[in-house]
């Protein structure tokens, strides 16, 4: 009964969203406040409907209601409770429902932010959001109904794909979806601006916190997905340039560019048309990502539940929204007036370079991902575009970006002083050189380029510190004053510095990967193998049987070179019984920021195959991304985004170098 109610709620949400698409936009045209306000009411109502429907499906999973096809195919009564819940979105239908839920959550939030948004912008944006919701609700109802029944109901479910039975599933997809779908707000705002035919700093200020939120969630989603792959897939890689990874990277690159161009628009009213274009592009790439994952046009490790029919439907949605968005852009963008002037050497100039490089990277990833498809369609030749291509090209674009980042931050708006910026960065540069030399002196092995990577990472990270310290400390300023000055800097300044610091930290982690080691041996209990500066001893192999799998656990004792213990770790090989599917659970021991990573292989004559990795400072890669996301969230709470109508500050602000 609850299931039918959930299904009905979804249909109701569709009806409400159709109203939401039409009425507020019409109201904005006629300048009718009551009609515009309908948008907010509809957004809240459709959120309530979709939330109810999501709860209904979750309930079916929790009680293992095997009369529902979706539950049968993806759940099992003996599965741990947490995986019953996360299993709701561990499949195509459920994850689409989550997608729609996040979409309506965002629309509801827009509906609630009456104070900080101009009425017509809000009404038009809600209309666009409504249209997106209509398309995806139709998609769910027509092609991917999670509520369809099965008769007769089987006694047991087919269990969730074992790879997905992991806390990672609780974290990675929701974060990623919030990021993907959050970009729809920027898209809706861009279209709303085009419908109105005008755009200004107020628009930029309204769209910035939403973009920041979406970007920060996307950053977290991608990085958590990468860590999940790292520990789950068992060979210690964290980024594979898989098409689906690329599909999440492209919106991230576009969103990062958007984040920076919106700043220019807010401050200087420049780059308007470009910013609108990026806002359309970022969400379009999210849709492309959805299409690539679910249509099966590209082979990928993520391609669960693919179906050509669904692919065609999503392709239709894609065409309507991307085509419609770009058509509207081509038609209305010439109406938008261009803004302020600036010199090439200025903060704006630096941000233009940032946008140039980010969009080039984004375009390169897009072309690299789709090129094999296009080539095969065009001349029938089959080629592969893999990690070597992306590492080379994206690396070449990232290099100038990283080197220029600290300089850009030191330039003033309108007209910057390149020499002055370089002087202020002397300390950072010197420290980076020291880091390179120290690495050369102390590190053994590894490619020659790796110490340079360390230097670049250090330069970016220290440059971010200089960003703050340079604004707080000055010649002859007492420490106390400087500290209170630093604390008084706006949150957006701190957020920016934190995010840039995170970029440096991630680069350090990537560079350190060069000194990782890999050992491949056959071991039997009592055998020892060296792993980096440690020695691992296989103590015993224990078979174990749990609810829905059985496993062989290898228990390893780790000792340092001087013989002292560094703890133990368990690596296991599991067999999930329902699907008869083996998985490897890597044993990971974290020592400081480094990790020892062990995975078990096949039983060999004379023991078991064991792969041992030493991964120095590997955690920096993800810690850096946490800094980036935290910076995004912190900047989002900046005072000028929180207050609605801007008011003059009561206390005169101290002068700070912009």
């Amino acid at each position, binding site marked *: 009964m609850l299931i039918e109610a959930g299904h009905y709620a979804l249909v109701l949400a569709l009806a409400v969203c159709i109203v939401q698409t039409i009425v507020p936009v019409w109201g904005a045209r006629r300048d009718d406040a009551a009609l515009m306000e309908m948008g907010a009411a509809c957004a809240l109502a459709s959120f309530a409907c979709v939330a109810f429907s999501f709860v209904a499906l979750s309930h079916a999973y929790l009680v293992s209601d095997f009369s529902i096809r979706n539950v049968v195919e993806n759940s099992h009564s003996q599965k741990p409770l947490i995986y019953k819940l996360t299993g709701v979105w561990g499949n195509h239908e459920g994850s689409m429902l989550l997608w729609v839920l996040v979409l309506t959550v965002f629309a509801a939030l827009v509906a609630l932010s009456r104070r900080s948004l101009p009425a017509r912008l809000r009404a038009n944006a809600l209309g666009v959001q409504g249209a997106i919701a209509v398309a995806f609700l139709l998609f769910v109802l027509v092609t991917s109904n999670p509520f369809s029944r099965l008769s007769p109901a089987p006694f047991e479910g087919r269990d969730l794909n074992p790879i997905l039975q992991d806390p990672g599933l609780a974290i990675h997809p929701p974060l990623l979806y919030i990021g993907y779908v959050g970009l729809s707000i920027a898209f809706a705002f861009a279209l709303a601006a085009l419908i109105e035919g005008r755009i200004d700093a107020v628009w930029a200020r309204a769209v910035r916190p939403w973009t920041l939120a979406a970007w920060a969630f996307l950053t977290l989603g991608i990085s958590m997905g990468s860590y999940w792959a790292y520990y789950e897939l068992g*060979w210690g890689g964290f980024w594979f340039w898989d098409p689906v990874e690329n599909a999440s990277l492209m919106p991230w690159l576009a969103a990062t560019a958007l984040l920076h161009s919106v700043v220019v628009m807010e401050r200087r009213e420049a780059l308007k048309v470009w910013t609108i274009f990026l806002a359309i592009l970022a969400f379009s790439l999210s849709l492309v990502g959805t299409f690539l994952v679910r249509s099966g046009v590209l082979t990928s490790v993520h391609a669960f539940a693919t179906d050509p029919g669904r692919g065609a439907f999503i392709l239709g949605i894609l065409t309507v929204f991307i085509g419609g968005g770009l058509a509207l852009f081509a038609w209305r963008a010439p109406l938008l007036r261009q803004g302020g002037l600036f010199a090439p050497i200025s903060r704006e100039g630096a941000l233009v370079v940032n946008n140039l490089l980010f969009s080039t990277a984004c375009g390169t990833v897009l072309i690299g991902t789709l090129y094999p498809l296009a080539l095969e369609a065009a001349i029938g030749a089959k080629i592969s575009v893999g990690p070597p291509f992306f590492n080379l090209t994206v690396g070449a*674009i990232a290099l100038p970006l990283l080197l220029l980042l600290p300089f850009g931050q030191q330039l003033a708006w309108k007209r910057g002083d390149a020499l002055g910026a370089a002087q202020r960065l002397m300390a950072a540069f010197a420290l980076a050189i020291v880091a390179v030399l120290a690495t050369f002196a102390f590190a053994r092995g590894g490619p020659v380029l790796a110490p340079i990577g360390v230097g670049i990472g250090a330069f970016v990270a220290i440059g971010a510190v200089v960003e703050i310290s340079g604004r707080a400390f000055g010649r002859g300023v007492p420490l106390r004053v400087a500290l209170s000055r630093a604390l008084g*800097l706006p949150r957006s300044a701190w957020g920016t510095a934190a995010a840039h610091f995170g970029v440096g930290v991630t680069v350090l982690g990537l560079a350190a990967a060069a000194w990782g080691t890999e050992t491949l041996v056959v071991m039997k209990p009592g055998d020892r193998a060296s792993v980096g500066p440690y020695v691992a001893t296989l103590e015993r192999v224990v078979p174990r049987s749990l609810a829905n799998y059985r496993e062989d656990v290898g228990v390893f004792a780790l000792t340092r070179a001087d013989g002292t213990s560094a703890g133990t770790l368990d690596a296991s090989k599991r067999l999930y019984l329902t699907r008869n599917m083996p998985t490897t659970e890597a044993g990971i021991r974290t020592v400081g920021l480094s990790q020892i990573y062990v995975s078990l*292989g096949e039983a060999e004559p004379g023991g078991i195959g064991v792969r041992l990795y030493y991964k120095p400072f590997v955690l920096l890669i993800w810690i850096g991304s946490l800094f980036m996301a935290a910076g995004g969230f912190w900047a989002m709470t900046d005072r000028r985004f929180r207050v609605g109508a801007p008011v003059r500050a009561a206390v005169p602000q101290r002068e700070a170098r*912009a």
Partner: protein
Amino acid sequence: MIRALRAALLAALLAWPASVFAVQPDEVLPDPALETRARSLSAELRCLVCQNQSIDDSDAPLARDLRLLVRERLKAGDTDAAVRGFVVARYGEFVLLRPPFGAHTLLLWLAPALLGAAGLFGVWRLARRRAEPSAEDAVLTPQERAELAAAGAETSDRG
């Protein structure tokens, strides 16, 4: 058709998570220099029955055959290029994860440069057009003008 596709996907899915243990200890060559070359070669060769994996990462039997083949050729004294050529002759260019530079991949390899150049050209055109004085001025209502002025006053002294 759909059923066959499903079955193929299922098979692929099943092949994937199992592929967690690639190079087996018995494959490793005694000569470390040769082994290093073998590893870096296999990292750039695609496992043909997997989803987007190099033969170095894959556990599929075909990947193992290919790894052994690469090592055999290396032992026979082939250069890296010769080994690559040998594998391509057997399996086609699809096997190379680094697409070769040629007429059919020209656009791919030049994509970053072309995109960057297009962007630069756009910026240059914009800067030129901007340099000419514009008669247009933003049309704002008085209320928006006040809002903007206030926003400017609030934010202009911040970084």
